[in-house]
């Protein structure tokens, strides 16, 4: 694959030649795709230099953003337009629009990339879409204001959390039935399986906690609390959750506390709070997991955290009210 600097992108039309060339050179920058809720755009940043490569116009109110497993496309939910924009990760253009039903907030995909799962925030539904045909396969009623989606590694379970019903709903993808509903703390936002699939973490924004759930028994095993000196409890709003590849450490974005918590994923002890921009929600790792990207909604930027030192090293401006982030290696 070609290295995608500005010139590289133009040259991408000469694909076969460049593929050879880039293999020879061996280096190509990853790219970060950040959805800007107010601007109706996606900002594309070079994953090494953090230079802005492109600003891609989308439909209205882009929020949830997801890279396909083959890294060929980046999908963005356009909440106020009831569709998904499919961005070609090479040309950085919207090449397709998929209807989703009303108010799609976030999305996830099956491990093979054949299905798209969308949370329809206004309709208390999860819509399942065949990615190849763009056709809706199934709509599954869940709780009110569904948001974060998690797909198990084998693809058999999809979990969606509903913000106003405050539940994690487990959907069996063979029957499309909801098989379990777990009441968690108030206003759950994100569900994330641990890398070994043994646990599911659910962040509760208003409750201010993260629930650790056993996905087999559907029991809550532990509730993680956050105490930051000098920050009132009501400002601690956990949203984004990501695990390091060794499974030992979790990063949790804390919303209006303007910090990312570093949590020992085995003992659940909070080890550190990293000061970032204002109202961080979504977070993502760089392809090699050396950097963590934190999207700050109120300061219109992305904080870059060095994972090994657990320090914020830089911040990079993006569009207005940045919401989600997807990384193409």
């Amino acid at each position, binding site marked *: 694959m070609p290295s995608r600097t500005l010139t590289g992108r133009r040259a991408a039309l000469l694909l076969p030649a460049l593929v050879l060339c880039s293999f020879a050179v061996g280096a190509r920058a990853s790219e970060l795709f950040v959805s800007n809720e107010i601007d109706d755009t996606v900002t594309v940043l070079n994953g090494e230099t953090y230079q802005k490569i492109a600003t891609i116009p989308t439909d209205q109110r882009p929020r949830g953003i997801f890279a396909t497993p083959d890294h060929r496309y980046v999908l963005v939910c356009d909440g106020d337009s009831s569709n998904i924009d499919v961005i070609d990760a090479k040309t950085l253009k919207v090449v397709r629009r998929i209807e989703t039903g009303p108010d799609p907030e976030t999305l996830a995909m099956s491990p093979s990339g054949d299905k798209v799962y969308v949370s329809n925030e206004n309709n208390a539904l999860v819509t399942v879409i065949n990615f190849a045909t763009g056709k809706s396969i199934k709509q599954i009623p869940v709780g009110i204001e569904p948001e974060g989606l998690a797909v198990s590694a084998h693809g058999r379970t999809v979990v969606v959390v509903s913000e106003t019903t*405050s*539940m994690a709903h487990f959907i069996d993808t063979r029957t499309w039935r909801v*098989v379990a509903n777990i009441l968690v703390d108030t206003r759950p936002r994100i569900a994330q399986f641990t890398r070994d699939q043994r646990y599911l973490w659910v962040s509760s924004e208003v409750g201010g906690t993260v629930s650790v759930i056993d996905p087999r028994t*559907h029991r809550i095993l532990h509730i993680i609390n956050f105490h930051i000196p000098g920050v*009132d409890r009501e400002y601690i*709003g956990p949203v984004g959750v990501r695990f390091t590849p060794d499974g030992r450490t979790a990063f949790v974005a804390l919303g209006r506390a303007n910090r990312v918590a570093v949590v020992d994923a085995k003992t659940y002890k909070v080890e550190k709070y990293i000061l970032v921009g204002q109202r961080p929600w979504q977070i993502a790792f760089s392809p090699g997991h050396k950097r963590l990207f934190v999207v700050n909604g109120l300061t219109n930027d992305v904080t870059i955290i060095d994972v090994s030192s657990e320090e914020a090293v830089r911040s990079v401006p993006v569009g207005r009210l940045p919401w989600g982030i997807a990384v193409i290696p």
Partner: protein
Amino acid sequence: MIVRRAPGGFGLLALAVLAGVSLALAAPVQAAVRSFSITLLRKTYHFNKEVLPSLLETHPADLGVSGSEEATSELNTAGKFIGWHFTLNVITVPEGGNLAAAAQRLLARGPGIIIADLKANDLLTLADLPAARNALILDMRTIDDSLRQRQCRANVFHILPNQAMLTDALAQYLVWKRWSRWFVIQGPTAGDAVYAADIRRSAARYGARVVAEKTYSYNPGSRRSDTGYQQIQTQMPLATEASGDYDVIFVADETDLFGDYLPYNTYAARPVVGTQGLVASAWTPAYQEYAALQMQQRFDLFAHRGMRERDYGGWLAVRIIGNAVMRAGATSPLAMRKYLRSKDFLVAGYKGQGLTFRRWDNQLRQPVLLSTPLMTVSMSPQHGFLHPGYTTDTLGFDEPETKCHLGH
């Protein structure tokens, strides 16, 4: 809480109380749906819509109760997953009807958990009935300071911000703006006098100054007429003339007699805040931050109109009961009262933080919106106003100054 859906339709919910007994063996599977009835007691009050200054102002008959109905259907969305079904039982006492008798009947029959859409006097009538002693009354309507001070009751929990919270919310914003010289214009009612006293209290708390005060008791003729504005255009400059300079007019006119005539009619070019102009409230139909947009859209689908403050009060009251039942298993009034005052309780109300009750006066602590009819201008507490406990306790009567002592 762990819940498993039994194979079959949505209605077939079986609680996984599987202490030893497996679901497969417990045949036939019993749909363990428990029901809970919520009572909303309201009274019709005399209202003369002809006195509303603006034709755009309406007075929907379902004000308040639609919020409770919408919330009940939301509880049932959650309830259907975990085996609870909620119903809302609305009792409306007609204008001039006997509220005490209706309340007695309710308390004799029901569990004593009542959402009250009542004015202050009627609320106290209900709360002071001997049969209500161990009841839980959720006040979804009043903003009266007195009910959070000397007239507070252990069986009453208040949802909407009271007058002193409202003036503090505005005051913090004005101080942040450095608009700290206030000209107070007060209407003729007892409520206006309380609100005006709160303005003076807020000024003292936050270092602002009341530089002029006036009572406006002249009937401005706020009614339908063909050439009304011409007289208003000369009346209001007179009413707002002050000897010294001021930054804002802070108006106390709770019954909308004249306050809406003030903007653009003032003697000096100064903004109007208070009960009109820039207004403090728990909710407006224009508020969309902190995912309130989703709430507004759901309410509009349900009630075919915008969601107002009293709808929000009714909505929150039902959501609070739902939390108590589904999260804490509290179904009796005393168990609920204990839970609402515990550190385990919080309710989400689209304010970006959990809302809890102050233990000294059972008032819901909450951020307060500052809005014009079309826009949210800001939300208080303002940045920089600090508190050792909850930042929201910078609004209204804090524990050291309370005249109500329901406990710590």
